[in-house]
């Protein structure tokens, strides 16, 4: 019960964040403009050269994969560190609620806030696209939206988990932004760099399998491959391939981690590891 009470309080509080809604407005704006461009000029965006609802879904995935991490940072980085720095956590901790329930309540509350923003954006963006296209695949739409909301929840967990490890918002900011830079912006380059170094400072002609594994570790990449795994027909329809920047045919790839289903595994990992880390730190520290 206290988890839900904490979550409800947190939702009421954080859903009023102006920064979140500014970002949602920007998200919707970008979606509307790019959706319009995609429908009118499909050859600029996809190999099929024809605007389809499947194509629109994967096109939107690219934008959502950037928006959700950024929105998660804004909504969640102060979730616990901010409360500890300000002292509002003392009001919460004075009540009979365990630290783990505070952490889980925070994750739930912030995930719900983020999901609200994402849902609003996606409904407007994809609705607009469906009207322009004059076609819509309801099952595809529902699966995609559900997976995106799940991804939002996982990103909220990552950010709340990081926030739980510290009582300083400065450190929380560094952790959140650092995570984004490392795992979202430069991650594709990390395994390639390692291969480059291991290969005697030159690029090999073919890459070992683990490169694909490591590449897919990035949460947004895992989200993208999960969308492919969940909507294989739409993926073929839209001519989408997985494997980050490296072109791999999803059908022919052999090792399990190069298959799209690996995305689910990595997303699950991103749910468990930050939560465990945050739990370990938060339940032990002085607040």
């Amino acid at each position, binding site marked *: *019960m*206290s988890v839900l*009470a*904490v979550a*409800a*309080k947190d939702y*009421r*509080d954080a859903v*009023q964040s102006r920064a979140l809604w500014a970002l949602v407005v920007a998200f919707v704006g970008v979606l509307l403009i790019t959706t319009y461009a995609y429908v009118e000029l499909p050859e600029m965006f996809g190999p099929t050269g024809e605007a389809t609802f499947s194509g629109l879904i994967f096109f939107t995935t690219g934008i959502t994969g950037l928006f959700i991490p950024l929105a998660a940072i804004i909504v969640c980085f102060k979730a616990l560190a901010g409360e500890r720095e*300000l*002292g*509002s956590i*003392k*009001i919460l*901790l*004075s*009540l*009979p*609620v*365990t630290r783990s329930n505070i952490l889980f309540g925070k994750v739930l509350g912030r995930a719900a806030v983020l999901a609200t923003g994402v849902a609003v954006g996606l409904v407007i963006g994809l609705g607009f696209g469906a009207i322009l296209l004059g076609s819509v695949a309801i099952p595809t739409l529902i699966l995609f939206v559900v997976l995106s909301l799940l991804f939002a929840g996982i990103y909220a967990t990552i950010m709340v988990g990081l926030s739980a490890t510290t009582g300083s918002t400065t450190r929380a900011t560094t952790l959140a932004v650092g995570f984004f830079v490392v795992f979202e912006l430069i991650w594709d380059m990390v395994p390639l760099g390692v291969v480059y170094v291991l290969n005697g400072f030159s690029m090999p002609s073919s890459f070992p399998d683990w490169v694909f594994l490591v590449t897919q570790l990035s949460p947004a990449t895992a989200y993208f491959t999960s969308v492919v795994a969940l909507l294989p027909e739409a993926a073929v329809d839209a001519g989408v391939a997985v494997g980050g920047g490296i072109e791999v045919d999803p059908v022919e790839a052999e090792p399990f981690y190069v298959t799209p289903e690996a995305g689910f595994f990595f997303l699950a990992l991103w749910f468990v590891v930050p939560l465990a880390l945050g739990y370990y730190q938060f339940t*032990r520290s*002085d*607040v």
Partner: protein
Amino acid sequence: MPAIEINNLTKQFGDVVAVNGLDLQIEEGEIFGFLGPNGAGKSTTIDIVLDFIRPTSGTVSVFGHDAQQESLTVRQRTGVLPDAYHVYDRLTGKQHLKFAIDIKGTDDDPMAVLERVGIAEAADRKAGGYSKGMKQRLVMGIALLGDPDLLILDEPSTGLDPNGAREMREIIQAENERGATVFFSSHVMEQVEAVCDRVGIINRGELVTVDSVQGLRSATEVGETLYVHVTDFAETDLDNVLDIEGVTSAVLDDGRLRVMIGERPKFRVLQDIDEIAPIEDFTVVTSSLSDLFLHYTNEQQEVRQ
């Protein structure tokens, strides 16, 4: 069973010893004032009782429940007004109470509580816009939820005007009459003096003294002082004044006689002085606990140096 039992409690933050070997027992049903200058270790002690921070060594129990292992039970039975807290700026006063009621599982009426602490008219305003005193009243309201067996109040009159501080005292007394044990900290003597059964003075992480207000008074030399304006007073009369029963010291100071008295009623002492030299006027100064407080904390510091 004591309401709070603290045994050999020590808390270190790096090199700094915030609390050093503290032993303290708060009896059920009493109002206990925990006094000390800023940084003496009051809040650290309270934070450990509530499991906000963990002790370096020593144990704390509340109504027999270990403060670390059974913190949830402790907090279920305790109402807290913490120190250096911050309200949720974007939530209204009523929303604060609602979620606290949800978590604590009590059947309080939020509006009745807000009424009691005097901010009912601000119930639907966001707490971020409250004054310091209103925030203090709001969090006091949260502390009162569920008629707790123990109230822990860290500097309860912070941010309150004299009227607010009086209302706070009245609530504390009413809660105590209901049966609650009250443990509150302050660095202002007068508030402690007004309501407490017993007082503990802490300085530099160590307990300097624990006693009743009366006991503290009589344990120290400071009692009551008479300032007497006398006419035709000769230096030699001073010895006669000193001989009066109950006078512990007498000094002639700028045409004014400063007489400190012990157990004897001051009226009798005044009559005796009047016989030696006619009294024109007089004032009585009762040494407040503030003087005692300064006396204890300064003395302790001198010992340390």
